[in-house]
């Protein structure tokens, strides 16, 4: 601490790279980007992206999960994990998006962090990109701790539109679209078409001739405007133009075909209708071939400009995607559900579809948490800084971080979004420990790095549950890895609140006909609900049928009469799929609602879906990740 001023002075006076082994000392070197400096920063980023090996990403959100059970947990299959992440991505908003292109050369890592401030401002007044978003006060307060400037974010944050929203936005804007290609329609002209073509053709000719003749003569203004009125002509910039109203897309096609004849002078523009489709075709008269080229270039620029304005921050995403460089994040399922939803398209309802579609946008995604799993038990490393200190104490893998210092705080550099640099650092460190040398040299060499590639694109419930938030946090699971089929899982609720997993287990042990000793384990999901995992097949079904039968006896009977209820993993799946059941803070509420609401139609629905989830039913959950 006492060294700090000196070091700062040194850094400022030298004004070039500082080196350090830990992440802490580059804190001020993150370039902050708002809408005022987006375009210049974009060029800078483009250069760094083309030079780098990897791109690390880190997102700051307005919230994560509304209730403890809604967090992605180890008892979730891939599908459940995805549904939970999807729900969060659809509710919450990203306020900061840090991007850090970095290169690894041996033990040296060079990183160039950018932190983009986002706000889903409806720039075009069309209800996009986002109608509303949720905030969790605890998340906003942690931003306050970091001295986050909410005014800057809301006033100057960069907006964006997803790829799916962009075409819709263009239609809603109603700006004319230049259309240069015309495909001759295969079908022959009907009588009505022929009449239409003849009428339009003569109208265009008349108008064109009139314009030409008027341009040679010097009429007075009154006559010119009268003529314009009579012919339906208008001005497009400095050039004369005419609007031809259309009622069907067929007519648009026909008009474009007619215009082929006049291609040397006339440029067609399509004016979209508000509700979609086409309202009119605008024909612009140019004075020469050069003039026509000029107009076409102008139109192209206009369109590019508009597209840039519409895309906003998505330019960055498109840039990363186009580079095909591998991306690195700390929790890829959470990050990429947000990224997909904000910048690609609404999230598909199915996890396979999501992963498949995501891969076409980001072909290589590395999850640092997943890589860390190879080295350390997951519960030791709930976040980036915990991972850092864990590795630091156990492994000798010095990494030389270099974050070039390009400016001062006044020039828009500070520590916000610094987490992304820590992710780069952590990634390099874990790779070094795992002896996965990230490639050096030519870009092609990367694909030869099969060892590292085997870690790419793995999504799953990789996050730990809230450490310590579970009562007592007693670890009921044995230390050996044990996989449990979802069929051997039973959810229990309705026991007295505040019971610990151990006590519950002891109580259940009083019914030895199902709860054979050493054949089951109990864990709390939240205060209201517990999971029982059987290590013998068939016991879960036995328990559930026993609980609803007359034969129930002993301690279990007592517990059931006091309100204990049970359900299979299938019911849990139904809860995850049916958002209407997500209300309530506690999982027990959702279970009660799900059971009360098991009407014929939803049963039919789940049966029809059963075939597609069968692959899921033998999917395993790794209880050691708890």
């Amino acid at each position, binding site marked *: 601490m006492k060294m*700090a*001023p000196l070091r700062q002075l040194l850094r400022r006076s030298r004004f070039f790279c500082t080196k350090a082994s830990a992440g802490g000392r580059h804190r001020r070197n993150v370039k902050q980007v*708002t809408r005022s400096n987006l375009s210049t920063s974009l060029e800078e980023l483009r250069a760094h992206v083309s030079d780098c090996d990897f791109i690390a990403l880190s997102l700051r959100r307005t919230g994560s999960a509304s209730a403890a059970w809604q967090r992605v947990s180890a008892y979730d299959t891939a599908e459940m994990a995805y549904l939970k992440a999807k729900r969060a991505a659809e509710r919450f908003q990203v306020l900061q998006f840090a991007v850090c292109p970095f290169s690894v050369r041996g033990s040296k890592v060079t990183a160039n962090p950018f932190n983009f401030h986002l706000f889903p401002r409806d720039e075009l*007044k069309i209800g996009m990109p986002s109608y509303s978003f949720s*905030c969790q006060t605890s998340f906003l307060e942690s931003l306050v701790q970091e001295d986050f400037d909410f005014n*800057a974010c809301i006033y100057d944050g960069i907006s964006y539109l997803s790829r799916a929203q962009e075409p819709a936005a263009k239609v809603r804007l109603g700006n004319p679209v230049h259309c240069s290609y015309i495909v001759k329609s295969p079908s022959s002209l009907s009588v009505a078409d022929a009449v239409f073509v003849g009428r339009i053709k003569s109208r265009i000719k008349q108008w064109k001739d009139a314009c030409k003749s008027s341009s040679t003569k010097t009429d007075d203004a009154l006559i010119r405007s009268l003529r314009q009125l009579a012919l339906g002509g208008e001005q497009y910039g400095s050039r004369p133009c005419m609007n031809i109203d259309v009622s069907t897309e067929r007519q648009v096609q026909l008009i474009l075909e007619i215009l082929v004849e006049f291609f040397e002078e006339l440029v067609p523009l399509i004016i979209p209708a508000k509700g979609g489709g086409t309202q009119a075709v605008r024909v612009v008269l140019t004075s020469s071939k050069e003039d026509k080229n000029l107009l076409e270039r102008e139109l192209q620029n206009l369109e590019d400009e508009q597209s840039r304005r519409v895309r906003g921050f998505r330019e960055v995403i498109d840039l990363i995607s186009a580079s095909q460089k591998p991306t690195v994040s700390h929790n890829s399922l959470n990050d990429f559900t947000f990224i997909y939803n904000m910048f690609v398209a609404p999230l598909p309802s199915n996890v396979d579809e999501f992963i498949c579609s995501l891969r076409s946008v980001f072909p290589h995604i590395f999850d640092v948490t997943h890589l860390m799993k190879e080295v350390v038990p997951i519960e030791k490393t709930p976040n980036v800084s915990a991972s850092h200190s864990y590795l630091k104490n156990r492994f000798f893998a010095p990494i030389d971080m270099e974050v070039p210092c390009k400016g001062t705080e006044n020039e828009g550099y*500070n520590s916000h979004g610094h987490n992304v640099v820590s992710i780069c650092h952590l990634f390099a460190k874990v790779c070094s420990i795992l002896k996965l040398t990230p490639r050096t040299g030519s870009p092609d060499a990367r694909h030869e790095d099969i060892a590292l590639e085997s870690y790419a694109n793995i999504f799953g419930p990789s996050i730990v549950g809230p450490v310590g938030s579970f009562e007592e946090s007693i670890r009921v699971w044995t230390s050996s890895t044990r996989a449990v089929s979802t069929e051997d899982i039973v959810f229990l609720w309705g026991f007295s609140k505040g019971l610990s997993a151990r006590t519950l287990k002891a109580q259940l042990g009083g019914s030895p006909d199902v709860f054979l000793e050493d054949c089951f384990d109990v864990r709390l999901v939240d205060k209201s609900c517990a999971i029982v995992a059987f290590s013998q097949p068939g016991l879960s079904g036995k328990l559930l049928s026993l609980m609803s039968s007359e034969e129930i006896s002993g301690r279990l009977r007592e517990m059931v009469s006091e309100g204990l209820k049970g359900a299979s993993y299938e019911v849990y799946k139904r809860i995850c799929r049916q958002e209407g059941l997500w209300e309530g803070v506690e999982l027990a509420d959702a279970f009660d609602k799900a059971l009360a609401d098991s009407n014929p139609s939803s049963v039919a629905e789940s049966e029809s879906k059963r075939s597609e989830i069968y692959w899921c039913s033998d999917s395993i959950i790794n209880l050691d990740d708890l």
Partner: protein
Amino acid sequence: MNSPSSVRVLSRAVARALSTAAPTPSTFPLKTVTRSNFEPVLESLRDHVRSADFVAVDLEMTGVTSAPWRESFEFDRHDVRYLKVKDSAEKFAVVQFGVCPFRWDSEKLSFTAHPHNFYVFPRQELSVRGSSSEFLCQTSSIDFLARYQFDFNLCIREGICYLSRDQENELFRRFNESSNLPRDLVDFGDRPLVNMADVFFTERMKIKFKDWRDSLVLGGSSISESQESSSGSNQQFQTIFYNMRPALSLIGFTAHQLRLIQLVTSKHFDDLAYVSVNSGGSHVQQLVIYIDSNADKDLLLKEVKEENHRGAESKIKAAVGFRHVIDLLSSEKKLIVGHNCFLDMAHIQSKFLGPLPKAAEEFAASAKKHFPHIIDTKVLLNSNEMLQRQMKKSSTSLSSAFALFCPQIALGYKTPDLSLASRVKVEVQVDDIRASSWDMGVKHEAGFDAFMTGCIFAQACTHLGIDFKLRSPLEDLAHNKLLQGHLNHLYLSWTSGDIINLTTGNITGKSLGANDSKKRSRKIVFENIVLLWGFPSKLRAGEIRECIVKVFGYSSVTSVYQLDRTAVFVQFSKAGLVSDFLVLKETLERNNNTVSVLNPLWKLLEGGKTRAANYEAYKEICSSPLSKISFADQAEAVGINWKVKSAELEVAEERPSREDEPSHGSFSVNEIIDSFYTPVVEKQVGSGNL
């Protein structure tokens, strides 16, 4: 040591000045209240409210509608309108609360106003189970606030927290529950310590406590402060006195270690007691206390319990925060004045009192209990003919009504005009500074909006014939005869003109006085309505009408109203057609053959995702706490069993139509509202006070 941080602060300040347009201070005197000055302001506000003739209020929220289809529509029945307001009040947060007491000064012959602008933020000071620490933001509303230079930093960092009465009660209940419970040692009690670290720790504590006790009892002089630094931890023992008893204060132990300590004292020492004392602040004291006897022990535990109780009370009181202002307004039973304030009242109920009831009538009962006298200036301006004439048919939005009614205040007395003689004079007092002239205040700053509302009300009163100069100071304005017709009348929804009377709970479809009669000529018969959604996305209202008319005849459809791109209301001319339609739809879908495809209705059903239901389903969908952007997604997520719905419908159809419905022949309008989709920005964003 200091230099880096001060440099940082300075440069941060510079950066902020450069990067963000800091909200410009308004020259209008306005008391800004945050958590730093809340307590003293609350005390002074008490006096102002007590002496006030009426109190104007205004709220700024983070949004109004949680989905486009939750906006107010013509096809909303009263109960649905209430559900939409309820949804809004439950989902969005209040970020600013304007309170402006007005008092008639009989010496100066003018009103004195005390505008307060409270920044409120739903920060969770104490965790309350069931209360959500989550709120929704409507992007356009946030952007709207930003356009009026709302200071989000101040709000989130310094906003005043609050608890509703229900939450407060719940906290007390839980606190009492936990303090009455015996210490839970079940998990720990009989089990031998298995963990070696625990065994060592327990032994060490045993020795430590024994030494300490012995030194006390034997009068040893070496009661030393000790710090266990050997292990590098910061565990500390400190001898202090707790309520005249020697005590050992434990610092730096984990919860687990404290539990072991508790075990040690209860098992091995009769004359030591472990207690945990929380006297209100964030600091909790962990103490091992020396006791003389069992009687002394009981006394001590009682003392500790009382102190903890006082501590919890003061904590909860602090967490109640801004609700003290609401309690003040409610307990003083003053006349509350708001502009288009039904949504504001719903927010007040849901944030500060308790959950909103399911129906508007119950809400009215609760509102009447807490705020017996409410005047809505928007209702007042629209329902009184004389005021209508004054308004000259101009907009009754807050700012234009203010400019029209109180030009002398709006323009700061800059234009001397003879007509101003009839204008009510208003002075503003903030702290000790009085002002009767200022530049225009900041619109959509809750404190200023409340001030404008109060001024409009004062002026409207004089137009109604209330002469403040002749009024006795003891007379309660809320009981003035001239106001009785308007008291507790609020717009349930401004777009429809539906007015709810909070005194009776009745809802009337038309406004009381003169109003645009053409607008209300259209009668809607909810039994005749089919809700359609999930149809092919290219279809618009006109085409849908076309399809249905081809099957059921030209006069079968009265109107088609587009709810959003994915859903429409179809109003049939007869209730019987509703079930005919549903039956035909089901038959076509079931058969799904060439004959079906040839039916004109098939165009609607293409894609196989078209759903239809009667009006009750709409209510059910609106009552769901979910808010998907498109109606079709919402309906799917809510997952109502539609088959059941249509079956119910066939029964309902048997019922004779109610008497108050007009005969079918009276439908004059065949109106199709197409492409309703043009965004009405002001409607969406203007936080309810248009």
